[in-house]
């Protein structure tokens, strides 16, 4: 019996050999299901086919699943990968494992969410989420014009523990809108009377609707809604529609630039959204690992900014933006 198992094991090992002979590059995302990561994986797969390398993908079971990502990195080390790109679920806890991989000679490029400290990876390709927030904040302010000083703003944030992306976008919006943010790395400590409430949407459409319903109970005269992402924005819209506030009296802004989101900009549901580029991130990372040369990174920023562009049908002076048509060409998900 034991012999049989060992035989089976060696056959398995042998059949895995050809893969080992190829160049293996990994891609580890936060989850398997989020369209942002699904598209990132598709971008990586296309690039891998073009470069003739083997792409090994893995993901955590849920957003925040550090253990799952640790296991994925260990598997890549064991597979003799040349390197990998990772979207860290926990930007602090994953650092020792990434160090282990780099010690083993793997190139590590972090995508989307920088590590803490950022230089624990070979390079970071990410969206500047604070800038993404500033773009929609400035757009909302300019669009309201004189009315901006009496705005009533509802924030639909991501989670109570304020992950990096959550406070960067929220505080970026405030900075762009002209609100004194106090501590720029934390929301909830401001005293600007225009802020009506912060609610938690978990970036989910159904919970986004519930959060907006509760916010409307507190702030019936809301006229600006900041949302952490486009599903939350779509949920907020349903809540506004139910009380007849879909008449243009409330402006929704968001971040992401997924195709459903950009179409919602076209339909007038979302006023403006900051678009980010996951396919580009993944494709660039694969190319950098494959060629061994990293793009030039501005040491003042610390990471390579893959860019964020404002998508809106109503551009305003002083805030650069692209049209809905351009946004649809670049959108993902």
């Amino acid at each position, binding site marked *: 019996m034991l012999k049989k198992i060992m035989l089976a094991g060696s056959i398995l090992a042998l059949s895995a050999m050809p893969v080992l002979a190829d160049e293996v590059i990994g891609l580890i995302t936060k989850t*398997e*299901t*989020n*369209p942002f990561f*699904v598209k990132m994986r598709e971008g990586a797969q296309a690039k891998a086919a073009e470069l003739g390398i083997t792409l090994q993908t893995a993901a955590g079971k*849920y957003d925040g699943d550090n253990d799952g990502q640790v296991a994925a990195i260990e598997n890549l080390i064991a597979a003799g990968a040349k390197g990998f790109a990772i979207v860290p679920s926990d930007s602090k806890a994953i650092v020792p494992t990434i160090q282990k991989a780099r010690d083993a000679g793997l190139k590590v490029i972090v995508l989307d969410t920088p590590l803490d400290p950022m230089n624990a990876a070979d390079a970071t390709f990410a969206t500047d989420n604070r800038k993404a927030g500033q773009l929609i904040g400035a757009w909302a302010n300019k669009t309201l014009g004189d009315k901006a000083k009496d705005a009533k703003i509802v924030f639909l944030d991501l989670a*109570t523990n304020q992950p990096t992306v959550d406070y960067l976008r929220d505080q970026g919006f405030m900075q762009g809108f002209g609100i004194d943010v106090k501590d720029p790395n934390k929301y909830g400590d401001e005293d600007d009377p225009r802020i009506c409430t912060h*609610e*938690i949407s978990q*970036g*989910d*459409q*159904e919970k986004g*609707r*519930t959060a907006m*319903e*509760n916010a409307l*109970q*507190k702030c019936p005269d809301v006229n600006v809604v900041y949302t952490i992402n486009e*599903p939350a924005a*779509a*949920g907020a*819209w*349903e809540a506004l*529609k*139910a009380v007849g506030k879909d008449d243009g009296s409330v402006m929704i802004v968001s971040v992401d630039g*997924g195709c*459903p989101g950009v*179409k*919602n900009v076209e*339909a007038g*549901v979302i006023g403006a959204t900051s678009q980010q580029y996951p396919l580009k991130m993944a494709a660039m990372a694969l190319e950098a690992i494959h060629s061994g040369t990293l793009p030039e990174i501005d040491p003042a920023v610390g990471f390579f900014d893959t860019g964020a562009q404002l998508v809106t049908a109503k551009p305003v002076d002083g805030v650069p933006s692209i049209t809905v048509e351009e946004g649809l060409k670049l959108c993902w*998900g």
Partner: protein
Amino acid sequence: MSDNSAGSTAAERGLKGADETVASFEERDVGLVRRAQAFLHRFPTSIPFIVLLIGIVIFSIAAPGKFLAPFNFSLILQQVTIIAILGVAQTLIILTAGIDLSVGAIMILASVVMGRTAVVYGVPVEIAFPLGLLCGLACGLVNGIIVTMLRLPPFIVTLGTWSIFGALNVWYSRSETIRSQDMQEAAPFLQWTGTVIKPYDFFSRTLGLDWVFLKGWVLTYGSIVMLLVALAVWYILNKTAFGRHVYATGDDPDAARLAGINTNKTLIGVYALAGFICAIAAWVLIGRIGGVSPQAGQTANLDSITAVVIGGTSLFGGRGSIIGTLVGALIVGVFRNGLALSGLELLWQDFAVGVLIIVAVTIDQWIRKLSA
């Protein structure tokens, strides 16, 4: 016989002088508690009602003016509808001493099948909708068959199928959202459950009644679907042989089998029916968010179990009710909405729901002591 009685008299004589009232209840000291326990044992559904009332009183004080309004109660009702329907499905399973971790996954898969088939693949909604219902039924059937045929614990089976249905969802949906506007164009029927009705307007228009107490209430067809589902399952559980078999199987499967009940058939029926109800929840979900979001409902399975437990249904099977589950879902909704309106952070909402669960199970255990 005589030996026995003589022996017991001798023993009693030995006890002479000891407290002879050991076996009787101390009416004066614990009478009230005992009576409460007996009352709750007879009417276990009254506990959730009491908790619901306490919640309403607390938040009327904590969030004055905002909480205690017909419109806010309408909102709570809309916010709990989906969990309440899943809770009805979950109640069926838990009554058989099982548990279904896959209800949320079945709901999302069914919503994706309905929505994507109709909107993306352009299949008429007359086919896409039944297909979605069938998908839910099939998922439930798979759960039931594995539980009975392979004799595996429902926890393990549905832990597995949760994962499987989740993977199928990603595969079929490609994680792509369907927007409300596209849904409206291609399959408005699927959004019907989200249609708003104002009972006051309805009655004044159709019957010319001026029922002032209905002013401010806003319902959706989804809430009515929820009530119909609950009514149907209540009828099945209380008025049909199948329903009695469900209770019997949950209470004591061996005794039920000896009494001639085909427990396997009962269980498969329960899981299939639960799957079907999850698909109805999918329809209500589409109405609520307008479109289809493959990302939604991540916590729906645990939320449904929470509603069932707080509603007084015993996790050990055989005891519980549909009305309790509806009230349980309402309690969670009232606490979440009330705490939010009082300005508390989400983490304290989670904290409160956790306390409610533990209190509910403690009370359940305490009542069970009387029956033991």
